[in-house]
């Protein structure tokens, strides 16, 4: 099978990124969109850690990935709080219904 190079991880990261982006675009459930965002962040993390390992950047890639994980957790908490408010007003989390600010 040969040894695993940086390219393998980058291709996997690209696949995860595209799946996350597609999830964000196609889904209408707000929580589903949040799941897509998490997939995209994971793809970025795979790339960061893989570059840190294969390009000899020391601990920098892992530190950046750690901050991404922290930001993802914070973002999920705020997003769920916003969805709760959304749901309370419209009794749905269908993002297409969130057009109250339409001019």
């Amino acid at each position, binding site marked *: 099978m040969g040894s695993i190079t940086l390219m393998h991880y980058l291709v996997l990261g*690209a696949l995860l990124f595209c799946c996350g982006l597609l999830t964000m675009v196609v889904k209408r459930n707000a929580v589903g969109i949040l799941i897509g965002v998490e997939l995209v962040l994971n793809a970025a993390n795979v790339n960061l850690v893989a570059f840190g390992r294969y390009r000899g950047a020391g601990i920098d890639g892992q530190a950046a990935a750690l901050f991404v994980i922290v930001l993802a957790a914070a973002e999920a908490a705020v997003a769920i709080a916003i969805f709760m408010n959304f749901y309370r007003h419209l009794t749905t989390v269908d993002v297409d219904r969130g057009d109250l600010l339409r001019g």
Partner: protein
Amino acid sequence: MTGSNRLSIVAAVLVWLARAGPVWARGPRGPGPADWIGIELEAVMFYLLGGLAAVCAVGCVLSSRVVRMALFLFGALGAVAGLYLLLHANFLAAIQLIVYAGGTLVVIIFGIMLSSASAAARYRARPAEKAAGAAVGLLLLAGLVTAVGRIDWSEGIAAAPSAPTVDGLGRALLTTYLVPFELSSVLLLAVMIGAAWLAGSGRK
């Protein structure tokens, strides 16, 4: 046995694995039969975990029920944690499972449970949206893969760090990355207050 119990057992096993380090990284260095086996094992593990992550990500896109999407996300997160172990990022693998799978995913599942009172609410995208999304996604994937494939990535493979990386990571967080570290603590405080206020503000 409750779910959180099971999760904590899984986390404990993974922390132990992270401490012990990858089995194939302990063998003697230099070309030899042990090294060859290590390379093959690494490839097998990569294809297993990467395949699991890819399947789960595709499942996230294709499934229409949001609970299944959360389950697929859990699989993808676990597989990525395994990939971190392969990349010698032991501490990050443990953090991935504890913070992501144990924290963020639970928050997402809470969100699903609290927002699906309208029974069996299904949010279907229109076929035109699906087609456009699939076209854009596949085009982007093809572009990214060809861009990655054009470059020769084979040279400059870093030597494996012998010790677990917790030490270096902690040192970096308190020296090089002190400002972002403190900023993220302020951010977490702001998020905590903001999320509590946002979630409670609509209550009469």
